[in-house]
């Protein structure tokens, strides 16, 4: 149960050999993703400005990291020997108090990314047995998360997904809403779809659109999401060698939309084919009513001179006499 005494954490500062610090113990680590390059260059230039906080581990005469995993990681990487660190007497504090301290310290530093927030929620619930209502009333507002049960479940779901996806959320490559959609899939489907998002470097909106379309098509077709990717039209879009990744994304979304909305797509295709056959000149566009809900078509003219307008008048007469415009009107009915 969550219970915190009001007191100040008192650390005793001393020099510690890096070899004595056990960075495998990640009880208090809530960091996901790479450290910012600026942190490494700062440490290389100025050394450690804010000393990490460590707990002494009496069982093997080593230290456990409470705050400063990234700083210590960089120091080990650049083969530093020792470090000035604050040592906290862990016998004075509960596990939960120490974890809470780590969360607050990280938040006050460079803040927490979306994956890290999810990890905090999971640890609060699973390791520290903080009740859901307490997480919603205190911790979620603190982490700037909407505090409701649905969000809480989603955060826990996110924290359980695979490390590459969590890292991708952390570095901003995968959108958090797309991650929610990914978290609802089976592992195999999730990784399969994540790889496509990652390889094609999809933007935020396309990620959400892609996952939503795949989920809905698979539900309707009663197939696994990864099986949808084996449909020939989808494969063609994914493997089109003539297209660069952004073009493949556009083609993929278009193919999926046609699969998701076959009746609309069919009508739309016929309209576009007939409309193309009209050979509309520049400045004249033909549109159907929104959703093909009424019989009306909409012909739009744009011109910048009387001559152009006269020319368009001739064109309109030609269009009115064409077989295609009749077919369009008949088909719309």
């Amino acid at each position, binding site marked *: 149960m969550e219970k915190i005494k009001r007191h100040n954490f008192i650390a005793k500062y001393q020099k510690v050999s890096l070899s004595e610090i056990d960075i495998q113990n990640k009880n208090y680590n809530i960091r996901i993703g790479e450290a910012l390059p600026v942190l490494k260059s700062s440490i290389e230039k100025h050394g450690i400005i804010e000393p990490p906080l460590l707990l002494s581990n009496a069982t093997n005469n080593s230290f456990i990291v409470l705050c400063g995993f990234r700083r210590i990681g960089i120091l080990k990487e650049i083969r530093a020997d020792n470090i000035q660190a604050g040592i906290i007497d862990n016998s004075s504090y509960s596990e939960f108090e120490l974890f809470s301290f780590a969360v607050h310290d990280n938040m006050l530093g460079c803040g927490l990314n979306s994956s890290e927030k999810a990890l905090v929620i999971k640890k609060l619930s699973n390791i520290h047995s903080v009740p859901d209502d307490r997480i919603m009333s205190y911790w979620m507002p603190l982490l700037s998360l909407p505090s*409701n*049960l*649905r969000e809480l479940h989603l955060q826990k779901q996110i924290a359980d997904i695979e490390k590459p996806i969590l890292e991708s959320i952390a570095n901003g490559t995968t959108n958090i809403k797309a991650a929610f959609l990914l978290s609802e899939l089976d592992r195999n489907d999730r990784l399969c779809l994540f790889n496509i998002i990652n390889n094609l470097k999809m933007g935020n909106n396309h990620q959400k659109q892609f996952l939503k379309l795949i989920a*809905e098509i698979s*539900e*309707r077709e*009663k197939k696994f999401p990864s099986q949808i990717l084996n449909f020939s039209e989808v494969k063609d879009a994914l493997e089109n060698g003539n297209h660069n990744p952004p073009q493949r994304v556009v083609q993929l979304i278009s193919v999926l939309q046609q699969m*998701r*909305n*076959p*009746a*609309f797509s*069919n*009508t739309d295709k016929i309209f576009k084919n007939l409309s193309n056959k009209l050979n509309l000149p520049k400045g004249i566009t033909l549109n159907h*009513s*929104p*959703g*093909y*809900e*009424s*019989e009306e078509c909409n012909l739009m003219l744009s011109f910048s001179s009387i001559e152009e307008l006269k020319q368009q008048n001739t064109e309109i007469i030609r269009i009115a006499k064409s077989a295609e415009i009749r077919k369009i009107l008949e088909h719309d*009915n």
Partner: protein
Amino acid sequence: MTTNKNDEFHTSKLDCELNSIEYAYALPDALGYDITERFRKYLGSRFININSTEDLPYFGNDEDPILKKKRNILLCLKHSPYLEPCPGTKNYLCCGYKIMSIVEGCHMDCSYCILQGYLNAPMTRVHVNIKDYENALNNAFMSNPDKSYRIGTGELADSLFLDELTGVSERMIHLFSNYNNSIFEIKTKDHRIEHLLNLDHNRRTIISWSLNTPRIINLEERRTSSLKKRLEAAAAAEQAGYKLGFHFDPLIDYSGWEKDYEEVVKRISKQVNPENICWISLGCLRFPPLLWPYIRNRFPSSKLYLGEFIRGLDGKTRYFKTIRTHMYSAMKKWIQEYLGKNVFVYLCMESELEWQNAFDINACTMEKISSCLDNRI
């Protein structure tokens, strides 16, 4: 104030409904009315007097505010107009129906119900001044003897919610039995109609059931009666001499809908005589896009989102027209096949184009639909 025999009529249906109510809040001007006093009697400590609506609790922060609104009742007065035209929807054809919103809010819980996002009220409202409704009806019927009225209480509520306590249907059945230019329609998804079976209705009341396939009822219509029970109730109503109505609204598109909906029509034919069916309406699923979050959050297992939707001319989400045409045509075919060609079938809130495509009726107008339905009464 009159006493009502419902005071003695405390059935299991009413028990269930009363048990589902957390509190009833009565505004000062609602006190003294029969209905208010019955609520006080049956709810005991769950009946609360308030001075104004500002004293009502706020459910916005609750986990499911909609459910809270369903379970709490505000007893208040309705001010004119008592008889209102069905709100219809822009650019689609309405049938010219009239509604009386004596109860606003429904204890049943359907995923697609627009009331979830439609009613701007702190909780379910029960208007206790029934006499004012009755006066308005008498005035309308007597001053326009040549005009036909089709009036129902099932637009903003299930007509039978708390019906034994309020006595609304009984009083309306009695009132309408005196007029030949009007018909009263009870619309429900409930099968518990015992309290209506022995009333003198003079065939001026239609009891209508909103029907759907067992799959949709299980998945999307919480706390409603099963199809079997609804159809058995329809048979009982028919036995009691009532005219019947059926509303396939919403028709929902899913894999296998054809077989399921055909089966429902077939089952109607086995339960009731088509001659007693006054009308059957068809309406494909439609709702304001604002309803999506309610469906997603309150009905996570709902499959409604799998439909192929467009934004209609009224801004509402609807199935694409070819899907609607297919569903309406198929339903009409089955109705004619199993129930005969004399059963009147109409489309609810559809476009002129859809009347033409599905029913082959050109230049359909609200006046034409209204006149056809009026002729049925």
